[in-house]
């Protein structure tokens, strides 16, 4: 059983913003229980053909590095500086102004100076200066350089796996440094000497093997979707069709696998199924591309590319016109910012056009993939669905902008437009915690493990604090989000910091409000919670 973390009050009181007396370079990293992740399982590394699979754990003194590990990292560093001009610019351009320093949820929740994005990047930048700049080569420490030692490597592992690649800091950087890309480079370098975490490599290996992070095989996938179809019929009286691997369908729909496995994700799945049926969408699920998420993004370019290609290979095989994506977070960072050069352009598909409204999604001209919030808000805009927002009156909702849809694709207004049409009680959290400035759930980019729970609770504190504000002031009782990691990690976070606030997806609310042709009177919402009796005995 997981050990109970500190009490909330104790955790808050343990946050100390005063930096240690010693210089950061002289302060060794300590692997505290609850603040790091386990190493990757050997069989999963082998499955992905990743280098130097071996048994080791971060708490052990000897990480069993290959003999020439320094040479490997130096070469890897050089290769990446040559390959990515952006990486070299990010290494050179930072003036250490500190605008990012207090913008990181991990810094706010831990007070550890090395969690200031500027200093986290400096962990890498110091080695860059020493090895790749003239000043650093000559002056070493005086020019802010330092040699790559085992101590430095351990520091990299600890702190680059204490960054969720959420990019809130980047919003405030006057130079526009993409700090997530610095973390991505550091993780790639760590991978070169076999330092990986299990919560990233096991889902990636599973996805490569069975099509999804959970390792669900096709017959299990079918079983889950069919169960949802049956239950939706019980709830609404409407039997929907949910085709799987249907060749020639117009649209391939790809959702995160947790939507057909976990709760509260599942209620969002019911919402998708109800909506697609009601508008008569000619679509298909796929058991091969049964994952929207891409844990490869958290690992390396190569792994991201391999996992991303499955969606497009399947779109080609099934002969669909375009791809619709579900309530997934980091999937959209991959699609919107990397897919085009990873596996694109997907010119064997068509530029997406909504078959219901005729809207052409011009912005998806290259990736041929549309976010479900865009799709649904367009349906509502064209009055194509009938909605009864009163069926969500038991919810007082607020919306957590999931980091990647908000910051990586600018999906700010569409979710709000939909919420405002399906819910009567929508209350925003404070402005500096939403939209582009949204605070991370604290568990993204593969860090959502039990062993990392203390760090997750610390990192999630700013988000939870904003929820607490609207809970106490406006009686908010549900936090909506459009990312499966959010749906998995916000419930324990809120249970810890703000009990009595639930977590749900926007399409769960859509499913509740959607008036379906031929439906029975709804006695419960999609969670099975009975609606209160209306005066005159009529149910809402």
């Amino acid at each position, binding site marked *: *059983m*997981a050990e109970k973390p500190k009490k909330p009050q104790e955790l808050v009181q343990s946050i100390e913003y005063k930096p240690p007396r010693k210089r950061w370079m002289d302060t060794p990293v300590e692997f505290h229980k609850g603040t790091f992740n386990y190493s990757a399982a050997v069989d999963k590394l082998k499955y992905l053909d990743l280098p130097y699979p071996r048994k080791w754990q971060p708490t052990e003194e000897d990480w069993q590095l290959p003999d020439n590990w320094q040479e490997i990292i130096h070469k890897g560093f050089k290769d990446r500086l040559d390959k990515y001009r952006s990486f070299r610019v990010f290494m050179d351009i930072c003036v250490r102004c500190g605008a990012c320093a207090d913008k990181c949820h991990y810094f706010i929740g831990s007070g550890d100076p090395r969690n200031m994005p500027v200093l986290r990047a400096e962990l890498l930048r110091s080695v860059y200066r020493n090895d790749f700049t003239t000043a650093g080569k000559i002056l070493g420490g005086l020019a802010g350089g330092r040699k790559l030692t085992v101590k430095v490597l351990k520091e990299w592992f600890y702190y680059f796996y204490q960054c969720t690649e959420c990019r809130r800091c980047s919003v405030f950087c006057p130079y526009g440094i993409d700090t997530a890309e610095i973390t991505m480079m550091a993780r790639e370098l760590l991978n070169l000497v076999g330092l990986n975490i299990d919560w990233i490599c096991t889902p990636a290996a599973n996805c490569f093997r069975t099509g999804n992070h959970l390792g*669900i095989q096709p017959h*299990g996938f079918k079983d889950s979707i069919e169960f949802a179809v049956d239950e939706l019929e019980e709830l609404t009286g409407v039997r929907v069709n949910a085709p799987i691997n249907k060749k020639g369908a117009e649209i391939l729909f790809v959702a995160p*696998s947790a939507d057909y496995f976990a709760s509260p994700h599942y209620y969002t799945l019911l919402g998708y199924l109800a909506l697609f049926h009601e508008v008569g969408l000619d679509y298909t699920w796929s058991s091969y591309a049964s994952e929207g998420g891409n844990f490869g993004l958290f690992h390396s370019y190569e792994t991201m590319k391999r996992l991303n290609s499955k969606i497009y290979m399947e779109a080609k095989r099934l002969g669909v016109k375009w791809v619709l994506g579900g309530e997934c977070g980091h999937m959209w960072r991959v699609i919107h910012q990397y897919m085009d050069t990873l596996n694109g352009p997907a010119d064997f598909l068509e530029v997406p056009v909504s078959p219901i409204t005729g809207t052409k999604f011009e912005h998806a001209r290259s990736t041929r993939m549309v976010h479900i919030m865009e799709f649904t808000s367009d349906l509502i805009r064209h009055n194509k669905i009938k909605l009864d927002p009163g069926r969500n009156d038991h919810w007082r909702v607020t919306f957590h902008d999931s980091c990647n849809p908000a910051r990586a694709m600018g999906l700010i207004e569409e979710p709000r437009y939909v919420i405002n049409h399906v819910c009567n009680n929508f209350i925003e959290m404070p402005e500096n915690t939403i939209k582009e400035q949204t605070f991370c759930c604290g568990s993204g980019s593969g860090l959502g493990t039990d062993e990392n729970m203390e760090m997750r609770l610390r990192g999630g504190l700013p988000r939870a604090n904003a929820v607490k504000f609207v809970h106490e002031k406006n009686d908010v009782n549900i936090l909506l989000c459009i990312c499966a990691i959010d749906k998995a990690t916000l419930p324990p976070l809120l249970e810890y910091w703000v009990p009595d606030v639930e977590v749900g997806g926007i399409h769960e609310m859509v499913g509740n409000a959607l008036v379906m042709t031929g439906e029975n009177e709804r006695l419960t919402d999609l969670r099975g919670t009975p609606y209160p009796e209306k005066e005159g005995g009529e149910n809402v």
Partner: protein
Amino acid sequence: MAIFQHGSVSIDVDEDGFMQEPDKWNEEVAKALATTEGVDDMTEDHWKLVNYLRDYYLKYGIAPMIRKLCKETGFSLKKVYELFPSGPAKGACKVAGLSKPTGCV
């Protein structure tokens, strides 16, 4: 990776105590693993849940959807947490000898 020993039971487990070779699961193993979850007495309800998971796992190679688990055993999620305080995935699945679900869960 470690060896978990309890009475006559000795099995390989991962860092979270999940067994590594699910084929070696039996009722004795389940009882032994249950002690690590704070369950010293496996009641009829505990077995109902564990056996359901086990059967599903043998058929599909994975745990069922949480919603399905609740519906088919007749236990609410709250009840599942009462039976196994770490919850369906980390508690009940562990005792049933399943591997840990990973990803956005």
